[in-house]
């Protein structure tokens, strides 16, 4: 009876709503951090009486969290990191209640440290950028996230950095004027490759062809345990993502000629949100653990 009750209580607390609330409340918070915070919240609300029940509820919650978003890569990096930590700690502490308190406290420390990480990377980044007489930042934009691309230009302008927006298709055109390419990432995989917004790979290919260095700037909690062998190995490669959401909408169709209307039916539409950039295209990775070569990632992952 008591067991049933506890499960019900856990379910009253909705991990997905909690996660979304965290993201909404602080727009600067990255997804892995929000995931860890929500799992800590879950522990606070958890009424589980045994360790295995507790672990089970955590695993379920992280699974639920992962399946609730379209692209779970960076989220799962955070959630998995925390789950690994829980598994290790649960072996050390014998008292279950003490274990829970300990987990909540250290979860907070983890989040604090992870938030501080960005400043640490910024310190490294400053040295990097100082060594250039002129830095032209190549802004990544995605056709899918138009709002985002203009947002980043606005932010740069505000900081007094001259910024230019170009089309994805103009990367090859502009690359000769560029000194270095900086990209962020959703995740870094085991071999040092990047998972990032669609278009990163092709920018990397162009940068390599033009012999320009490509630096990735990432927090170490984004290291994910994946080893993709090609683009289609990513967990986000789901049929759901392979459709243009508005391709068949009336608005789209009405804007086109009648002759094209027929063709739309015959298209196989593909609209992925992320791609995988192999390590060969990456010059260096700037992380809070220092500057690493792609092969150096192996040593630093946990």
């Amino acid at each position: 009876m008591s067991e049933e009750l506890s499960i019900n209580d856990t379910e009253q607390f909705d991990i997905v709503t909690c996660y979304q609330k965290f993201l909404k409340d602080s727009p600067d918070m990255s997804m892995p951090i929000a995931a860890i915070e929500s799992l800590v919240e879950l522990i606070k609300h958890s009424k589980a009486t045994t360790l295995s029940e507790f672990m089970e509820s955590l695993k379920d919650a992280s699974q639920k969290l992962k399946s609730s978003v379209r692209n779970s890569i960076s989220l799962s990096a955070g959630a998995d990191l925390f789950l690994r930590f829980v598994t290790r700690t649960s072996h050390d502490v014998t008292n279950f209640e003490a274990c829970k308190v300990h987990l909540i406290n250290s979860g907070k420390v983890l989040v604090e440290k992870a938030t501080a990480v960005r400043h640490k990377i910024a310190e490294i980044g400053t040295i990097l950028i100082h060594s250039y007489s002129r830095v032209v930042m190549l802004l990544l934009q995605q056709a899918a996230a138009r709002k985002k691309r203009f947002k980043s230009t606005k932010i740069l302008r505000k900081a007094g950095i001259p910024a230019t927006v170009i089309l994805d298709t103009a990367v090859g055109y502009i690359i000769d004027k560029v000194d270095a390419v900086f990209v962020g990432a959703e995740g870094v995989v085991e071999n040092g490759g990047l998972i990032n917004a669609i278009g990163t790979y092709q920018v990397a290919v162009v940068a390599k062809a033009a012999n320009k260095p490509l630096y990735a700037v990432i927090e170490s909690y984004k290291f994910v345990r994946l080893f993709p062998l090609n683009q289609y190995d990513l967990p986000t490669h789901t049929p759901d993502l392979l459709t243009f959401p508005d391709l068949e909408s009336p608005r789209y169709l009405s804007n086109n000629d009648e002759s094209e209307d027929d063709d739309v039916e015959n298209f196989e539409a593909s609209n992925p949100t992320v791609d995988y950039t192999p390590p060969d295209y990456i010059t260096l990775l700037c992380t809070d653990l220092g500057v690493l070569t792609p092969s150096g990632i192996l040593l630093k992952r946990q």
Partner: protein
Amino acid sequence: MTGSRDLTAQIESLINRLRRRQVVGSWSVSLETALLFRQVVSVTRWSQVGTLIKLVKDVGRRLVMAQPRELAVGNIVRRVLRLIRDVYNSEVSSNSVKSVPQKGGRLYELQSYGGSNSFMEILNFLTHSFSHLKPSIISELQEMINELENMYVNIADQAMEHIHSNEIIMTVGKSRTVEMFLKAAAKKRKFSVVVAETSPTYLGHEMALSLSQAGIDTTVISDSAIFAVMSRVNKVIMGTHAVLANGGLISVSGAQMVATAAKHHSTPVVVCTGLYKLSPLYPYDEDSFNDMVAPDSVMRFDEGDLIDKVTLINPYYDYVSPELVSLFITNTGGHPPSYLYRLIDENYDPEDTDI
């Protein structure tokens, strides 16, 4: 008291000799630096490891500033710092006290988030007396000095694995490591060496002379013939001034031309280097590691009218990117460029990258 005055004089003397370029070449610089630090550790009085680390960093910073192009100085300073940290850590862990939190290490080494306060650990690190560690630090330093002294022999011992009979080997510049490496192989194998003359220093001439005196079949070519001759070459073996963290080389001017020609002909490029030349720095800006020396050797001042109509530059070093290097032969064995991150992790503490 006299001891510390002597030490100050010794430090000043090395700084001045570095500045005046009276001590040149990464090996002799490294050895002198290591010997100086043995002196620093043994003569100075300290009871806390934190004080010692600060002291070593202070002296190290001055040495590095004295000759910033000589990356080996910084490497030795970082090795000494790492060694002190290692001795301290092993002492502390054997006493079952919590070890120093490695700031640059794994941030999410989650188990270290245990109950104990990291502030206490740092306090312990800074204040507890560890003067009894002095002998073990000095003996570790001595080991490092011995390693430096046996460097060339250790590298040359591997020559038989890399040089085979009747091979044609190309080299560039003059490197004592490569010289000993080739001579060691020549004791048992017969092969020929093509030496690029390496203008404007013409160090290749000296190299060729030394090799031919050891009975090696040696050919000198002009630098402009490197590409043409490369098609006959089986292997390029060269030395370097420094190795950077990504596997790139700071090498004698002309080395990049050799390496690029080798890449075109798919000829392996083997770099012989002691580990003391491995630096944890990255080449964000390749030119910052280069030195422009007097252009006198390119064109003499009395060489006619041309001299005041043109700009003459004479870069001393070349940056060779890691993609052009096939293998590093170090005193700890052969390693590909992609493995260097591991060697850096073993030899230096991430906290000491900026001295």
